[in-house]
């Protein structure tokens, strides 16, 4: 809402010399946040100049400039004529013009421009003769502002060269822009803002709505409220007031002061009838509509739309109406307007044609207007106000003000009759314990102070059974006040939030972070410690990404939550795996010159199952258990995952030596590091699965077989399709599985301090046998004395049959209670080898 300061000053007494900045600061204290401060941007010296001489000089580029001598009085400090070059020609010697002298500033789209004397066209031009456009007070003129053409003669008569023009031209005017919260419809008016300013500062407030309202004499224009299907039980219109003004000349121009206020408030002057209704709306917050009386054939009937009805609104859109739309109709048939939202072409006033006008001042239901506005994606100044609540008590005053202005500036006469169909329900009251303010806010309010504030904002208080109990009837312009905390808010707000003390509450005492929260932190820290970078990517993907990743048609990862209004039609789905969105981050790093990138992300992914609808019961009531259960179960599963994607060098080359590219072994190792950070044992199973290389992919499971995730090198085709570096490797693990598996207290085993015995074996095995299978056999065969074993070499070549290779294992033996003898070690080793031979045809070399 834009608030021209001088307009505000008409309704509330502003301190002498108050600035827009100070007004904005005062309004913030009562909840109207500053959005901006609008000024002319023109800074003096800007003075009256009389053109003494002008000599046209043709330039080589064909342009003719005027070398002018301008009398600016003593404003230039010398009293000598000021030499100024001017390119315009719409003025002549003797004219009074606006001259900005060096040191003055003009607004430009690029910011303020400070004027200085400069050499141009062979002269030193000491200032500028200004145009309307340069001063920002109009768009229509390209030429120089010749003062008598803009200002009234009596003003011009008082002007002499050198006189300051900033005030005369209104360039010192300021407009404060504030943000109005959606509960404060009444602050979309100068009336509301002025009242709030008065609350903030104590300044004297004059309600612009308290004007003499014609009582009405005789039958007014017929109006019928015929809402047969109220929305949520509330009639669409509970008050409709109509006034008629006849014999107006709508071709007359809007008075300058009104046009200026409208412009400053952000609305374009569009002609007398529209300007008057807009002016009243801005002043009092009541949207009005003016109909051409001559075009109406029957009573005004307010009803809901019928199936199949259409209306072309003033924005030239032909709209199919919905049975829930509330309409203003001519005689119940011809549709004139979407009530409180926008009019149609029929019934519209036309300057030069219309002479008799019917003014509609009505109160429409906020919910009904809001739905119509949203349904038709049609926002208007009127709808914005009705949706947020218009004062149903201001209806008559608003119509009166409009009638008065039309009569004064359009020259008509008002019909004595007034139509006022008033079906407003009784405003409900609120029972309030006055001590609640103190109990709720934590400031020790005197009960008298609480009463005073409530009355200040317009509430009527009726005493209850005790001194602290009252019944409160809120003012008509505050439909948002519906309960006791709302009244407490008013007390706190008007008394000042700055009076609220700071007290740290004593919480009941918590149990710290949950295991899952700590575990996720541990995983992130472990991966960062391994040299990986945490990133947070957007979770939006398109089905094309599933194709790029090579997911087959039946892959459950294709089943994703779809957004109805995605930011991009290319990415309307919620990712079902983190690996779906990591490629962008990897590519961005590579394209910006970081080639060695190992990324990880921890977040939840969305894994919907079937289509379950979540009921949406309304506000203020606890749904029953069954409905709550339905709501909860409709929310798709969103397990926490961790994903890794890496490319480039694991060890970089440099002055310290050679480098080594990152590969699938690194990634599998990092996946293990995740499990290890949580103390969870994972097993590996060779697997083939998109998006991984079919021969370089491992499935990680818990010992009980529960899947943890996958790690591997990305399929070369995937790498190619996604534009990733060659051999990019990746992993994705279900953190929830790991977190659950790790949620136990690990019990320590005692360490043996007896010496370690080591024995190496080389086993020839057929190539198809998995390393892990051989390892398992050795482990099983060696028995309890085996502490650990590792595969330290794999050999294939001349020394081994073509379909076999040789695996070199190092086995470490230790007993808890004694030093092992060579014989014991050899026996255990032989048993291990025997088992491998039996199970896999392994032959010791």
């Amino acid at each position: 809402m834009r608030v021209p300061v001088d307009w505000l000053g008409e309704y509330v007494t502003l301190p002498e010399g108050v600035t827009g900045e100070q007004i904005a600061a005062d309004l913030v204290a009562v909840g109207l946040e500053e959005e901006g401060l609008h000024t002319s941007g023109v800074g003096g010296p800007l003075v009256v100049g009389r053109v003494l001489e002008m000599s046209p000089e043709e330039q080589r580029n064909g342009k003719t400039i005027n070398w002018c001598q301008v009398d600016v009085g003593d404003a230039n400090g010398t009293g000598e004529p000021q030499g100024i070059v001017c390119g315009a020609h719409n003025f002549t010697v003797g004219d009074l013009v606006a001259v900005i002298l060096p040191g003055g500033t003009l607004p430009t789209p690029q910011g303020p421009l400070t004027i200085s004397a400069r050499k141009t066209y062979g002269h030193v031009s000491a200032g500028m003769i200004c145009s309307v456009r340069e001063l920002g007070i109009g768009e229509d003129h390209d030429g120089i502002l010749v003062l008598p053409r803009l200002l009234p003669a009596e003003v011009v008569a008082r002007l002499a060269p050198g006189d300051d023009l900033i005030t005369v031209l209104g360039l010192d005017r300021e407009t404060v822009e504030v943000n109005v919260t959606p509960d404060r419809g009444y602050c979309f008016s100068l009336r509301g803002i002025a009242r709030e300013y008065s609350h903030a500062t104590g300044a004297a407030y004059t309600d612009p709505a308290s004007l003499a309202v014609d009582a009405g004499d005789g039958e007014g224009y017929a109006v019928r409220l015929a809402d047969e299907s109220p929305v949520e039980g509330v009639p669409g219109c509970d008050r409709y007031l109509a006034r008629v003004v006849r014999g107006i000349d709508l071709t007359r121009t809007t008075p300058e002061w009104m046009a200026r206020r409208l412009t400053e408030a952000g609305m374009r002057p569009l002609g007398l009838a529209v300007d008057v209704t807009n002016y009243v709306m801005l002043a009092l917050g009541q949207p009005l509509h003016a109909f051409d009386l001559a075009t109406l054939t029957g009573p005004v009937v307010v009803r809901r739309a019928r199936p199949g009805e259409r209306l072309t609104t003033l924005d030239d859109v032909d709209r199919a109406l919905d049975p829930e739309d509330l309409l203003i109709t001519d005689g119940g048939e011809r549709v004139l307007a979407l009530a409180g939202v926008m009019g149609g072409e029929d019934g519209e006033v036309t300057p030069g044609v219309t002479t008799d006008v019917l003014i509609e001042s009505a109160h429409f239901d906020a919910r009904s207007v809001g739905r119509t506005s949203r349904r038709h994606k049609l926002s208007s100044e009127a709808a914005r106000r009705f949706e947020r609540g218009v004062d149903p008590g201001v209806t008559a005053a608003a119509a009166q003000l409009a009638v008065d202005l039309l009569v004064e500036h359009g020259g008509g006469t008002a019909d004595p009759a007034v139509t006022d169909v008033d079906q407003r329900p009784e405003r409900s009251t609120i029972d309030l314990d006055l001590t609640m303010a103190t109990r709720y806010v934590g400031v020790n309010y005197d009960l008298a102070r609480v009463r005073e504030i409530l009355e200040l904002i317009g509430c009527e208080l009726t005493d209850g059974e005790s001194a602290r109990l009252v019944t409160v009837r809120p003012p008509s312009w505050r439909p948002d006040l519906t309960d006791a905390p709302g009244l407490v808010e008013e007390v706190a707000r008007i008394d000042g939030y700055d009076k609220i003390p700071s007290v740290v509450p004593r919480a009941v005492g918590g149990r710290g972070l949950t295991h899952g929260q700590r575990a996720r932190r541990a995983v992130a820290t472990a991966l960062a410690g391994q040299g990986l970078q945490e990133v947070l990517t957007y979770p939006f993907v398109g089905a094309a990404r599933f194709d790029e990743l090579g997911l087959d048609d039946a892959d459950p990862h294709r089943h994703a939550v779809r957004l109805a209004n995605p930011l991009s039609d290319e990415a309307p789905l919620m990712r079902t795996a983190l690996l779906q969105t990591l490629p962008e981050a990897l590519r961005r790093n590579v394209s910006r010159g970081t080639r060695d990138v190992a990324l990880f992300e921890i977040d939840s992914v969305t894994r919907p199952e079937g289509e379950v609808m979540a009921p949406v019961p309304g506000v203020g009531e606890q749904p029953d258990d069954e409905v709550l259960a339905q709501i909860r179960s409709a929310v798709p599963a969103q397990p926490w995952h961790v994903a890794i994607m890496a490319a480039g060098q694991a060890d970089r080359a440099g002055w310290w030596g050679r480098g080594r590219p990152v590969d699938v072994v690194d990634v599998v190792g990092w996946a293990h590091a995740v499990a290890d950070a949580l103390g969870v044992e994972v097993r590996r199973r060779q697997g083939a699965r998109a998006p991984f290389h079919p021969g370089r992919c491992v499935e990680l499971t818990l010992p009980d077989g529960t899947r943890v995730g996958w790690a591997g090198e990305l399929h070369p085709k995937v790498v190619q399709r996604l534009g990733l570096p060659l051999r990019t490797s990746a992993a994705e693990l279900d953190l929830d599985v790991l977190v659950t598996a790790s949620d136990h207290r690990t019990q320590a085993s005692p360490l043996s301090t007896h010496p370690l015995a080591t024995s190496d074996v080389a086993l020839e095995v057929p190539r198809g046998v998995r390393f892990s299978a051989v390892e398992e056999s050795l482990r099983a065969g060696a028995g309890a004395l085996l502490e650990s074993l590792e595969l330290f070499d794999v050999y294939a070549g001349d020394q081994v049959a073509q379909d076999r290779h040789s695996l070199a294992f190092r086995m470490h033996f230790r007993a808890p209670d004694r030093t092992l003898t060579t014989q014991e070690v050899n026996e255990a080793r032989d048993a291990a080898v025997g088992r491998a031979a039996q199970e896999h045809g392994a032959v010791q070399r």
Partner: protein
Amino acid sequence: MPSAPDAGGSPQHPDEVPSPTAAPELSQEGVDGHVEAALAAIGGAGDLDELKEARLAHAGDRSPLALANRAIGALPGPEKAAAGKLVGQARGRVNQALARRQQELEAERDERILVEEAMDLTVAPGRRPLGRRHVLTVTAERMADAMVALGWEVAEGPQVEAEWFNFDALNFDKDHPARQMQDTFFVDPAKAGLVLRTHTSPVQARSLLDRGVPLYVAVPGKTFRTDELDATHTPVFHQLEGLAIDEGLTMAHLKGTLDRLAEAMFGPGTVSRLRPAYFPFTEPSAEMDFRCFVCRGEATAPPCRTCGGTGWIEWGGCGMVNHNVLRACGVDPERYQGFAFGMGVERTAMFRHGIADMRELIEGDVRFNAQFGMEI
């Protein structure tokens, strides 16, 4: 004394071993001569290899003194003792000289190796790329930890959320403009009743329903609005929510909590300020600012760039929890009351670390991460 690894070993090159002298002279002069020769050779040895040769020649099995020693046995009895003493002392002197020289040469060698092995380490190595947490997750953790320190717990909730939890439970009427102003991502089809949560506030309702009262929870998490990405907006962002419901909680407790959190994030002495505002799920409602930690509200010329000269920085919204929220979650508003607040993690991180462009927080450029430590 450390023994040299190459001392006393068997000769590698027998050809170079000097041949034994013809006959041992067990006279004082003769022995002294051998000793002189030995000492000269030992003293002249320039490195451990030369010393090894000298050892072989003058103290080895076939050195003159060894031969002399062996010859003692052939002497007549009375001469044996004197000769034994003479030769023994001579060998003692030689061995002592050998040991001393061995020590000297080893020290020289050790010194030389250290010099030879010297590396210039003044250029930073970069063998392993270093890892980092993301500034947003670490910031959110720091904020949550500050709340845990006050005795609160940390709760979480789903990103794809039921519309009821995101709006209705929080007193956002389906026709209220505030609900439209949330710029919500809706899940298709609309009748699914699901949205991407527009704030972390639905976890208020979930926590009240799941945990009951009294309740003190902080909720960090990812949230969504249909804003296009630019320097100050992102469609995917993070909030930290706080909710306290107990008997007797007031706005003063809200302010006290915010002051503590502001101090934890922006340094000692940082206070908060409340300004009247409107949110459907709180009443009274407030916008909260924190005291600019750069200018501390003192006027400066030119105006402080961090706060734009206002002395305050907007942080988020808060207020006393609306009775309708409590009722929707089965809490008796006549007995329990409390407050809620929420602020942007991005905004907090941007002010803490002087980050000017939101995009740097979301692009995943590892150079951005690299500016920060693991604990920020």
